[in-house]
């Protein structure tokens, strides 16, 4: 078979264009960080001497945490979509959010009982949320595994069932501990208020490591989508890849939600949007999701603290709900067209 019509440059041109899009996303992120530190309800002019202090102590950590959480959720969401071979999966699907909520609500209830509040609560709540998330994910994982093999369908259903059960528990505990409801409500809606550098530091480490691990397995995630037999045949180990991805995504999202609460739809939406921009290849999609997720949450938070005056989780859900429906419709229409 000779080289009729050349080996075709069009595919390498597409690859080049996608690399260009990645660079553009990087620029967007840098610009976002720089602009958003100046957005806030303090409404000061740049010449105000207090501004440096406010930006350094309040705005910059808040913007950075938003960036880290956005990047982590988007990247973990992308990994979950690959593991479940389903573009409607998100990082909370294995019980992270419901488990974290139970943890957060539990400490709220206990706190109300023994009189923990204020500073102490703002410190213990993330810890309990993290523990709740990790324990739940582990339980869901156990339910979805048989003889060392991960069955993604069972895993998905286990996640849904456990989430429903824990949701009821959370509601009950909120009902009992109505004194602390304010703090808990903020957390449940997802909020980046009152962020400090310690939180940024604690979040940065696992999220960045997790992102790097997912980058490393980009090509293996592509091959995983071909099905387990084919992935195995191409030299991968689908079973250990699935486990690694589940563990990494679980830890990343658990850390991400511990301080900020449940910020929905980022992990679902961003990988989707990025697929439209750089295509489905995970070696491109992972960095794009990280950059896009960070920029998105930075802007959503800026919007939440300036214009809309609501927790950031409300902003992402308000944007994410309709977007999800749009995707569903688009998929349905495409499906029918076949």
């Amino acid at each position, binding site marked *: 078979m000779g080289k009729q019509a050349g*080996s075709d440059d069009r*595919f*390498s041109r597409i*690859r080049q264009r996608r690399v260009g899009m990645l660079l553009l996303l990087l620029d967007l992120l840098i610009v976002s960080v720089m602009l958003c530190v100046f957005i806030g309800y303090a409404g000061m002019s740049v010449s105000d001497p207090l501004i440096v202090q406010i930006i350094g102590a309040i705005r910059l950590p808040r913007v950075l945490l938003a960036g880290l959480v956005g990047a982590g959720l988007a990247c973990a969401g992308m990994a979950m979509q690959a593991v479940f071979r389903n*573009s409607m999966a998100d990082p909370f699907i294995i019980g992270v959010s419901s488990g974290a909520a139970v943890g957060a609500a539990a400490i709220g209830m206990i706190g109300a009982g023994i009189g923990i509040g204020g500073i102490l609560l703002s410190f213990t709540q993330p810890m309990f949320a993290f523990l709740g998330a990790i324990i739940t994910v582990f339980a869901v994982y156990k339910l979805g595994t048989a003889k060392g093999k991960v069955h993604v369908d069972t895993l998905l259903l286990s996640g849904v069932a456990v989430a429903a059960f824990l949701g009821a528990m959370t509601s009950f505990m909120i009902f009992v501990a109505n004194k602390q409801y304010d703090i808990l409500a903020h957390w449940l809606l997802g909020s980046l208020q009152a962020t400090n550098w310690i939180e940024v530091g604690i979040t940065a480490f696992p999220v960045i490591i997790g992102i790097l691990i997912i980058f490393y397995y980009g090509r*293996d995630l*592509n091959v995983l989508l*071909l099905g387990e037999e084919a992935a195995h045949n191409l030299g991968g180990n689908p079973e250990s890849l699935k486990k690694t991805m589940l563990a990494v995504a679980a830890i990343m999202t658990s850390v991400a939600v511990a301080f900020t609460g449940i910020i929905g739809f980022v992990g679902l939406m961003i990988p989707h949007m990025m697929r439209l921009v750089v*295509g489905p290849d995970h070696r491109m999609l992972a960095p794009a999701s990280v950059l896009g997720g960070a920029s998105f949450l930075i802007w959503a938070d800026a919007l939440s603290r300036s214009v809309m005056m609501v927790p950031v989780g409300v902003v992402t859900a308000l944007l994410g709900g309709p977007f999800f429906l749009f995707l569903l419709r688009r998929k349905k229409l495409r499906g029918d067209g076949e």
Partner: protein
Amino acid sequence: MKLEIKDLALSFDGKKILKDISLSVEEGEFLSLMGPNGSGKTTLLRCIMNYLTPEHGAVLVDMKSVHTMPDRELAQLFAVVPQTSQMDFEFTAYEMVMMGRTPHSRSRFSGLSKRDDEAVAEVMRCTNTWKFADREFSGLSGGERQRVIIARALAQEPKILLLDEPTVFLDITGQLEIMDLLRELNKGGLTIIAVMHDINLASRYCSKIALIHEGRIESHGKPEEVFTPENIVRIYDVDVIVRKDPLTNSVSVIPRNTSSISPMHGTRVHILCGGGSGGHLASDLIDAGYAPSAGVINVLDSDFELAKDLHVPVVTEIPFAQVSDDAYSQNQKMIRESEAVVVADFPVGPGNLRNLEAAMLALEWGKAVFVMNGDSIGDRDFVGGKAGKIVGDLIRKGAVTVNEKRELIALIGKKLGR
């Protein structure tokens, strides 16, 4: 290159799926693994590709065990086409095929080489998928998708291609497209092992068949050696007639009607037929419990072939000859032994006019006589009206005309009290 499977055994949950399977596959063979659902053929395929590890026994390629082979070497030896290839993500056909190059890149971060681009273009041209290389995989038709998956497998540059029911979700166009492609690849020297269900497709395209039943190889050889009525009834529990496919001369299997078999009562019914008019009547009468006989039929007539396959007693005449006195009297003997006689709607010429005359005798002997499609005799009369006259006489003297097979069976039953 030679693939050898030695004493392979595997169980799941204490149930033995494969029981000491031994099989060897030569280079350039196109082998189909066949057998009923749950017989272990997909499991065997998965052992060959080292996706499953057997409890004992080995799969050897040129005396090297696949179970200890490095992943990359294995991926360049076997390429796998799984049963289903769904894709929820928007990969183009080109990107799908490019994934087949994975075992050829040195590290996971090394970029695509010119060799990769060329290899993908080449396999996409030879699978006829190049023209839609930039279209989205999930938007392609079933046959196109399967060809892309085969192209992806070929991009691995394997020595052996393993396929799990490659045609199962395709329409007939897609099935032939895929099988034609596989045959071309096989002619080019590629060894192919495919799990298949369609016996006729397999016998048409494959050089060897291994028939698997309850974890054992029951029969292995060329299609005509394996697909015998005895093997098929033993393994699939279905009565079949085995014929040569008139187009390709390959073995072709026709399943017998199994849905409506009545208890056998053995009432004798004689069928006067020829030219394909009576074989199917004999088959239906057998299903209704009768013991039909037929005559006079020329050897090699399609009615003769079918009667033989159905083990129906038949009075024969040498090919293209007139009904001789000898055959005529044998035919009369069979009519005497029967309780009813069916005159099938065969074309009547000078050679077989005596079959109609035999029906007149049957009436005289008081047998119940049924005439199939008596009205159409004008179109089948090649003896200048003689046949039409006899049929007219038959009906006048009490023969019953019937237009439909089902009606025939019902009327015979009524008349004979069955």
